[in-house]
């Protein structure tokens, strides 16, 4: 049956059809829907793990025990999972093991623009790169065949435009492979030096065998063109931009497997055209490899390493004409994302701003505390870095600094990799104050459950990690819980914990305002008679409040009645 599917949904369908029966992932845009979609199939066990390293190791364990397994993450998640990745390359698999990694060129929802293809070469693991949903489905199935044929994990590299574009797929039936027996095999599964030394040559031979496979593989295909003056070597969404821009004009070698690359096929293709141009997003990965093979090629001399490409950009850089529409001669104000009306993070950041403290931030919706008018964050690096960074910051800054600095981290991010930083704070005794913004969900990626919510990926009740007990258990004696809507108490408690001469954790607890079960009291009313136009309520950056003719006006369609603005109004105009 033909249906429209997101690339992510199509990967999930491919996993299902291939008989995958174990999935463990950590959410991250743009990869999240793969795991959410595959969880809907009853035949597949699927879970959210605390982080990507745990997820990949769990998937590896399931593969060793004989089930086709899978793990998905965003590009930066692969940094977290890189440790097992590099050694799983040595062990190989039992049943097939497939790992999807989704890049985010253009940084629609990410903190960097890293190119995950480098991991394939560095870890010596084959990487497939689909260019639409039909290929996402087909490549997911192929990945299991390759994984078992070549005894290797297989990476599928997605990107925002493939993950989050719907295109037409034809679905098939699921195969149900028998679970493979597990046999104890120290030389295969124990990577200590004696065994690993024997494995490394096997890995190198495997790459040669995969290169040979790539030479004739159907996923690396040549499309003929009418104009041999230029041949294009491309993959992924860039292939689609090239086809859009030039149709069948130029011959194309489209790589479905980006690592290892078919050397002879590229050479032969290059020989049929006057010049070879690589069209690829982010780094010159294919280009660099061609150059290392001594194949003259053009690429990043034409195309930027920064952001996404597009059909117009491809056309223009290869000498075609493009015509943009007309722009308005008008300053169009930007519309950056904002914390939602009623977001429990807003008031907490307002309190931190009032206390004039340095704030080491982390990854999640609350990164938006960095923007005007709150401007309440000093650093954001990666998952967990607020807590570990705070430790170093406070150690370097001394006692005075300790009383003026905090870390903020969400519940899911804290479990992901904040807790290890907290252990360091306790163990190496920095006088740090960590604030856990517990909104009872993984927010930014679209409401995924996590170990602190009491529900699993399938929505069933499960063990709930108690944050207070966890903090106590790692050696933090001072643990306080506050309601961020109550700003006065919040401020008093944070002040007290900053003044304390030992490490402390403040848990700011209030569920995400968008959660369906959260009941709101209803919109605040503004009283124009009482409003003096002082704009105190404007300091929290709530999208539901504007000033109209010098008076505060509440947008009743947005306001949920959190009452934070009410606490800021000295004149009782908001109630």
């Amino acid at each position: 049956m033909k249906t429209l599917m997101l690339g992510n949904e199509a990967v999930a369908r491919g996993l299902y059809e291939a008989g995958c029966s174990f999935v463990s992932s950590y959410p991250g845009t743009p990869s999240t829907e793969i795991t959410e979609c595959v969880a809907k199939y009853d035949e597949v066990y699927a879970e959210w793990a605390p982080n990507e390293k745990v997820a990949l190791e769990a998937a590896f364990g399931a593969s060793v025990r004989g089930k086709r397994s899978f793990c998905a993450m965003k590009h930066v998640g692969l940094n977290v999972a890189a440790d097992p990745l590099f050694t799983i390359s040595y062990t190989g698999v039992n049943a097939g093991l497939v790992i999807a990694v989704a890049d985010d060129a253009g940084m629609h929802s990410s903190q960097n623009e890293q190119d995950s293809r480098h991991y394939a070469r560095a870890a010596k693991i084959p990487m497939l790169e689909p260019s639409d949903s039909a290929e996402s489905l087909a490549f997911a199935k192929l990945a299991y065949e390759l994984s078992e044929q070549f005894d290797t994990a297989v990476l599928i590299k997605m990107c925002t435009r493939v993950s989050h574009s719907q295109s037409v797929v034809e679905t098939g039936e699921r195969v149900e492979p028998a679970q493979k027996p597990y046999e104890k095999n120290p030389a295969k599964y124990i990577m200590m030096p004696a065994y690993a030394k024997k494995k490394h040559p096997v890995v190198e031979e495997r790459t040669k065998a995969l290169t040979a496979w790539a030479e004739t593989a159907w996923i690396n295909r040549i499309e003929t063109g009418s104009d041999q003056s230029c041949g294009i070597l491309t993959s992924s969404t860039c292939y689609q931009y090239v086809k859009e821009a030039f149709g069948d004009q130029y011959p194309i070698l489209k790589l479905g497997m980006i690592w290892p690359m078919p050397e002879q096929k590229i050479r032969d293709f290059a020989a049929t055209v006057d010049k070879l141009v690589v069209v690829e997003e982010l780094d010159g990965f294919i280009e660099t490899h061609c150059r290392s093979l001594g194949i003259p090629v053009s690429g990043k001399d034409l195309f930027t390493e920064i952001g996404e490409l597009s059909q117009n950009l491809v056309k223009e850089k290869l000498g075609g004409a493009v015509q943009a529409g007309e722009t308005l001669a008008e300053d169009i104000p930007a519309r950056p994302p904002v914390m939602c009306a009623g977001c429990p993070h807003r008031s907490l950041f307002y309190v931190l701003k009032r206390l004039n403290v340095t704030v080491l931030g982390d990854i999640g919706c609350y990164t938006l505390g960095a923007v005007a008018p709150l401007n309440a964050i000093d650093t954001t690096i990666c998952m967990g870095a607020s807590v570990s960074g705070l430790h170093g910051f406070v150690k370097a800054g001394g006692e005075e600094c300790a009383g003026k600095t905090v870390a903020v981290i969400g519940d899911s991010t804290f479990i992901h990799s904040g807790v290890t930083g907290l252990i360091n704070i306790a163990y190496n005794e920095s006088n740090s104050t960590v604030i856990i913004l517990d909104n009872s969900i993984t927010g930014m990626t679209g409401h995924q459950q996590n170990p602190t919510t009491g529900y699993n990926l399938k929505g069933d009740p499960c063990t709930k990690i108690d944050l207070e007990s966890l903090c106590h258990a790692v050696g933090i004696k001072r643990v306080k819980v506050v309601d961020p809507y109550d700003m006065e108490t919040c401020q008093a408690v944070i002040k007290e914990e900053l003044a304390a001469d030992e490490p402390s954790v403040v848990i700011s607890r209030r569920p995400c305002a968008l959660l369906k079960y959260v009941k709101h009291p209803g919109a605040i009313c503004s009283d124009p008679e009482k409003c003096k136009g002082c704009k105190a309520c404007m300091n929290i950056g709530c999208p539901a409040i504007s000033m109209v003719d010098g008076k505060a006006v509440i947008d009743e369609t947005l306001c949920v009645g959190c009452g934070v603005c009410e606490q800021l109004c000295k004149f009782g105009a908001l109630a």
Partner: protein
Amino acid sequence: METKNIMIVGVGGQGTLLASKLLGRLLLGKGYDVKVSEVHGMSQRGGSVVTYVRWGDRVCSPIIDKGQADCVLSFELLEAARYTEYVKPGGRIIVNSQQINPMPVIAGAAAYPENLVEKMSALDVNVDAFDALTLAEEAGSSKAVNLVLMGRLARHFDFTDEEWMDAIAHSVPPKFLEMNKKAFASGKNAQNV
């Protein structure tokens, strides 16, 4: 046939994804090759959001580039103005005249531009601006703005009522079906307001 391109733009949370889902369903049902491209994640938090809908004999790129949109369907006035350069010369802008202030305007760092409909109309585009929010509220819910806009879009594309109704029935929850059909009809039939 030449590939057709519709850009659906608006403010994160306004329901643009339902509109693209509905269109995708309709177009696939008619046997076209279809691509619908969305962006999830941070921009959904009240930011500027864009969805691309493309159909034809064979659709390659998932995105619509500058100068290529047959139609920009905008859920909000400022967002229409932001994307005029994506419209083909002589193309169309259908816009809900509702204004939602972005944070720089709320914070007083920028002003919401005035007379945007007139200014857009001076370009080489056809502008159809109307109050979709009021029509949606009259149909039963402010959330039905997306169906009002779909109705408006239906004026300009050659799809049958049956095809639209089938796509609507498959895209909205059954208990809101009648309300959404009403919203669709009001968008399609209303005079400019």
